[in-house]
Every structure is written in structure tokens, then in C-alpha cells.
């Protein structure tokens, strides 16, 4: 039994406006807990959460782990380096073995799109997607939306532009899906080689001009550029990328009104964003990180909290 209409959080693709609103509202209450002198509640006492991270990640794992600890869950970190995957065991066998140890929730990061969906078909545990390849990263999009909602009050009608490598970005896809569900207008901006085919079918505008995008949006979410995309021949050089798609103060000054700047991190300063933008008063990048813990607490509580009949969230 979950307080949402879903058992798992595999992605935002099937989440309704009501479910997303429930998560964001709950996250605001979780944020209050984080601001207390003792930022910890017993809500998930007795719930065991496994952080199954099969692709390197620092901030997302740390954020989940902190969220779990703030809710008093028992946590276990299972990283790829210490796993048996390197011994040729399949993902399914690994997951079944972990589940056989009587756990409740699996938070999974994996390089393969759909791997959380795959686990959800074979396991009884609650699955939370912490990033599956180039597919979805739902908690990142939720924390981005939480941050935007704090800034603008509502998401409906908000004009958001995602800038950078849309093709390989799970942050972009989850943001597009979530923001569209919440009634926002979404534009994607990047070089043609980094815009995936058929993206307009998701209801977004496409532009290859950052200056043009800046003219007609309220917030810019600047994506991290994976430097290996250059080696794959998807753009000529970091220098050219920065010149045409890098967010600089000079570019931003041409906006009709100050724009709010988001970045999922980690940043390549001087490539997709310059320091004077990243550290400016319009940047909400660190606020995103704080909200990340609150959103993950909310998701854990809403999916796993109702598992324990005696527990109630004490706020």
C-alpha cells in the first residue's frame, strides 16, 4: 500500500499531476524536518532500504542515503565495485539475492534504460529509480520542479528551457515528462546532434539558438555536458560548444527579465556554464541540492511509509 497511485517510482512517465503534487507537497513538509535542530524522524524505522548503485554516483547516492537516515530507515549500500556483477552474475540474480535477505525498498542506479522496470517485474520490493541510463531520473526532475515551484509558486504555464545534451540526458527526459504533466511549457535547446529524434512528439519546442531560447523562458535548466560526447564526434570541440551553447552572463543580460538558473550537477564550469552565472543571485543550484534530500524523503515516505501500519509521519 502506497500513498501514491503507484507501488514504485520507475519514472515520471506514468505519474499523474495529482501524484506529482502529492510528492512536492510532502517534500515541503520534509524540508521543515531538515531545518529542525534534530533533523530526524522515526517514520521509516524497521524499513530496510538497499541503495543498489551499479553506476558511479556520488551526489545522488549521498542524497538518498541521507534521506533514508533522516527517516530512520536501515540502509545498505551496494556499489558496483564491491558487487558480484564483476564475477559474471546477472542483475536479476544479484537483485534476487539481495531481496532474499528480506529488504523492503531498492533504490537503483544503473546504466541500462528500463533496468528498474525489469527489477520491478521480478521482485516484490518497492523500486525507486535513481537514474537508468539515458532514460529517466525521476527524483532529479522532482527536485527541479520543487525548486521551480518555490521560486514561481506554480508550474502551470511556466516556461522552462533545458539546454545541452538532450539525447543522452535522463534529467532532461524526466523533466520534460514531469513539467508537461504539470502544465509547464518546455523548450529544449542544443546542437542538432544532441537532440533526439521524435522529441517534438513529447510536446516540446526545439531550438538550436540559446539566445533565442533566453528570449522566451522563465527558467533555464543547464545540463551537464558529458565530455566523451566530443570524442564520439557529436560536436566539434568544447570551445565551440561553449561559444554557442555555454551560458554566460553576457548572454543572460539580453533576457527581458532575470532568468532562474538550474543545473543538476556536477558542473563543468567554463563549458556549459560560467562561474559568474553558476554563483549568481539567480542561480538556485545549491537550493536544488537541499531540495533533493527533501524530495527523496517524500518519495521514500509515500512509497514505503504506509508499509508499516503503526508508523505515522510525525512532522
Amino acid at each position: 500500500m502506497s500513498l501514491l497511485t503507484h507501488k514504485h517510482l520507475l519514472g515520471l512517465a506514468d505519474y499523474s499531476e495529482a501524484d506529482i503534487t502529492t510528492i512536492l507537497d510532502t517534500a515541503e513538509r520534509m524540508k521543515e524536518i531538515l531545518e529542525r535542530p534534530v533533523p530526524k524522524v522515526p517514520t521509516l524505522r524497521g524499513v530496510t532500504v538497499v541503495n543498489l548503485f551499479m553506476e558511479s554516483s556520488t551526489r545522488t547516492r549521498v542524497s538518498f542515503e541521507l534521506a533514508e537516515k533522516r527517516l530512520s530507515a536501515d540502509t545498505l549500500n551496494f556499489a558496483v565495485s564491491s558487487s558480484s556483477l564483476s564475477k559474471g552474475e546477472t542483475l536479476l540474480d544479484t537483485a534476487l539475492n539481495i531481496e532474499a535477505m528480506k529488504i523492503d525498498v531498492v533504490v537503483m542506479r544503473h546504466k541500462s534504460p528500463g533496468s528498474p522496470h525489469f527489477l520491478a517485474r521480478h521482485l516484490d520490493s518497492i523500486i525507486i529509480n535513481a537514474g537508468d541510463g539515458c532514460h529517466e531520473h525521476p527524483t532529479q526532475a522532482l527536485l527541479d520542479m520543487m525548486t521551480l515551484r518555490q521560486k514561481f509558486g506554480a508550474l502551470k504555464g511556466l516556461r522552462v528551457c533545458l539546454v545541452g545534451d538532450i539525447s543522452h540526458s535522463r534529467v532532461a527526459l524526466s523533466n520534460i515528462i514531469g513539467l508537461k504533466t504539470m502544465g509547464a511549457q518546455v523548450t529544449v535547446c542544443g546542437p542538432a546532434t544532441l537532440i533526439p529524434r521524435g522529441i517534438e512528439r513529447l510536446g516540446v519546442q526545439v531550438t538550436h539558438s540559446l539566445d533565442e531560447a533566453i528570449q522566451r523562458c522563465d527558467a533555464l535548466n543547464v545540463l551537464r555536458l558529458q565530455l566523451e560526447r566530443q570524442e564520439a564526434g557529436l560536436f566539434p570541440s568544447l570551445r565551440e560548444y561553449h561559444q554557442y551553447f555555454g551560458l554566460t552572463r553576457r548572454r543572460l543580460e539580453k533576457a527581458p527579465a532575470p532568468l532562474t538558473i538550474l543545473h543538476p550537477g556536477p558542473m563543468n564550469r567554463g563549458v556549459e556554464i560560467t562561474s559568474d552565472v553558476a554563483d549568481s543571485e539567480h542561480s538556485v543550484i545549491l537550493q536544488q541540492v537541499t531540495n533533493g534530500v527533501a524530495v527523496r524523503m517524500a518519495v521514500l515516505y509515500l512509497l514505503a511509509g504506509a508499509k508499516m501500519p503503526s508508523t505515522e509521519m510525525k512532522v
Partner: protein
Amino acid sequence: MRKYANFDEPARARNLVLQGVRAVDPERNLDQVLDLHIRDGMLSVAPKEIPADADVLDLRGHIVTPGWFDLHVHLREPGGEVAETILSGCQAAMNGGFTGVACMPNTEPPLDDAGRVRWVMEKAAPLPVDLHVVAAATRGREGRQLVEMSELVELGVRAFSDDGKPIADTAVLRHALEYANMLGARIFEHADDPDLSVGGAMNEGEWSTRLGLPGIPAVSETLDVLRCILVARYAGAAVHICHVSTKESVEWIRWAKQQGIRVTAEVCPHHLLLTEERCREFDTDFKMNPPLRSEEDRQTCLKGLADGTLDAYCTDHAPHAWEAKAQEFDVAPFGVVGLETALGLAFTHLVGRHLDLKAMIERVVYAPRRILSQPLPAIATGEPANLTIIDPEGSWTVRPDEFRSKSRNTPFKGWELTGRARGIVNRGFAVIKEV
């Protein structure tokens, strides 16, 4: 007659009557309800009297056609016996109504020399299924050096392919086409541009974007189809395009045929009946290569099958062990099984809707054998009995657990079909299921 329902030790067709069947043989202009008598594997059509000692099977309401032939299967032996063997694959063929199959050489090791090809032929020799081995076009399927084609043609090989991947080097492709053509054999090309499709897991488009999966663009197939057509024309050789899946491939093949270029092509049930959005649950039973394409591609393939642009209806039967498919979508291997569903799918969704029975027989009985320069089976007195027995009204549900194949990876699980293979007669054997 229980003794004929034996897949493991098939009964001899020594003195057997198929009573009251509708026999359809378009080459002989035969479409008539009659009795067929088989004595020691040889046919007698509408015999004046039925011998008193004959086994008589009442098959009223059934259709009998010359034996169906699947031009493209993978039997996995040697090397992949966990997923399929020559025996289990041939039993799947029998269960699916096929009296012949052409098996691809991408085994481990690959079938790239006479010793290995002969080994496979000998394993299949005692079975009721005609097994035609497609040999590798290049040694080790590495796309560099031609295999010893002359010796293989002497063994009976009529087709060479590096299937699973294309012959990417165009000079090698040219030489393979020229050399095979000299021998009266044909190159089967798995059409793909490996640079364009590298790393891909499904068709590139809206759905690959929604699912975050790396895409295989339609143009990567079409480009190679066009390359094969043009090089075949230049070389004056014949070329066969495997498992066509894109609209533009069909259009270029149609154009090439109009130009008199010697190109043939095949199409699979999954490309005729399914589209890319089936991948939405990340179910690896919908992962194959070429991938499921768009609705427009599917419709064009259906038209191509109907008008004969696509010569052959085949399955690309690609068995994989459960554990191989029970993996992440991008990690799991490509391929689906098809031998035991192709006939039911054809009768439910193709025959009578997109083409008539006569045309279907052309695509699945004659064209595959013509492409392989094999004799055509006939329903005529004095001919060896090579027959497929079909219950056109038989309703059934696709249950992978009931397959004779060792593998279960079908995208048609749970489908309700009307029309099923009842049995086959071939090579002196009869395998006919009880109802």
C-alpha cells in the same frame, strides 16, 4: 492414429491415407477436396481405391499444401545448445508445419568450412525436415576473406551469409557476390550500416527517445539494401536481402526489380504484425535485429509481401535461453523464435486479408526453394510426399511452454490464433498431431 503424433521417433509413412483434405498446389493448378495416399513416402493423388490395410486419417476440413519452407532460422548448434539444437529446432519446424528450413551459420564456431557444414548436414539427415545450410560468406564471419565456396557448393550449399551482421566492406561484398554468382549461389545480406546502428537496441524515433534506448535508424538498413542492389547490378550477380523491415527498403527493392536487377527479399511475421512501441515495457521478447519499426514501415512491408516485392515469408527464428533474455534491455541479445507461430499468424492475420492462399504458398513454399535453387515439391502422383497439413479453423492460444523449441522468446505470447499446423509429411515420415 497416435503413432503419427510422435516427434521423437517419427513414424514412417508406409501406407497412409489423408482422407478428405483440400489439396492446394498452385503450380499444378490443383485446389480440390480428395484423398491422398502415401506409400513408402510416395504420393498417390485421389487413388481409385483405398487399400484395406492402410492407416486412414480422417482430415476433412484440413488443407494440405506442398511443404512449407522457412528460409531463415538459427538452430544454434554447435555452440548454443542451451537455446536450441538441430534436433529441437527441426522438431519446432515440424510442430510449426515446416518441412524445410535454411539455417544460418552464426554458430560458435561459425559454419564457414566444409567440415562444419557437413557435420550439421549429417546431424539433420535422419530427420523429417530438409535442412539447408547457409554457409558463412567470409571466414569466421569476419568480413575479410571469402570461405571456400566451390567446395561448399559441391556439398549442396546454395547461399552464403554473414547474417547477424552485414558484409560491411564493399569490396568484400562485391567479390562475394561475383564468386557466389559464378557458382550459381547467392549472397544473403543482413542489411545494416554498422556505423549508423552502433550500440542500438531498438528503432530510432519517438519511442527510443521516450525509453532512453539507443536507436537503430531505419536508414542504416535502407542504405545497405541500396548498396547491395547497386553492387549486385554492377557485378551482374544475384543478392538476397534478409528480414526487410523498413519502408524505404521495400521501395528500393521494388525499384530494383523493375530495373531487372536480380534481387530477392524476405520478411518476418514480427515486422508485419508489430511496431516499435511494443518495447515500452522494456520486454526483451520485443528486441530483435532489425528492430520493430514504425506503423508506416509495417504497412509498407505488408504491401511488399502482398505484391511480391518481398518474395519470401520467413521467421528469423532466433532462440535464446531464458537467462539470456532475462536481462537489461540493452544487454539482452537480439532475436525471437518464430517457427511455431508463423503459420498460425499467417492464417489469422495475412491470408485472406493481405494476400490469398495461393500467394501465401508462393511466399513460403516456392520462393524460398527457388532462391536456394531447390526442386519444388508437388502434390502429384508419383512425387515424394512433401506436405504441410493445416487446420484452417483450429483456434489456439500461443503458449510458449508448449513449444518444441528449447526457447520461449516469442513476442506473440498469449495471442489467440485461428489456423494451426496439424502436421507434416516428408522424407518418408509423417508427423501428425492428435487434435
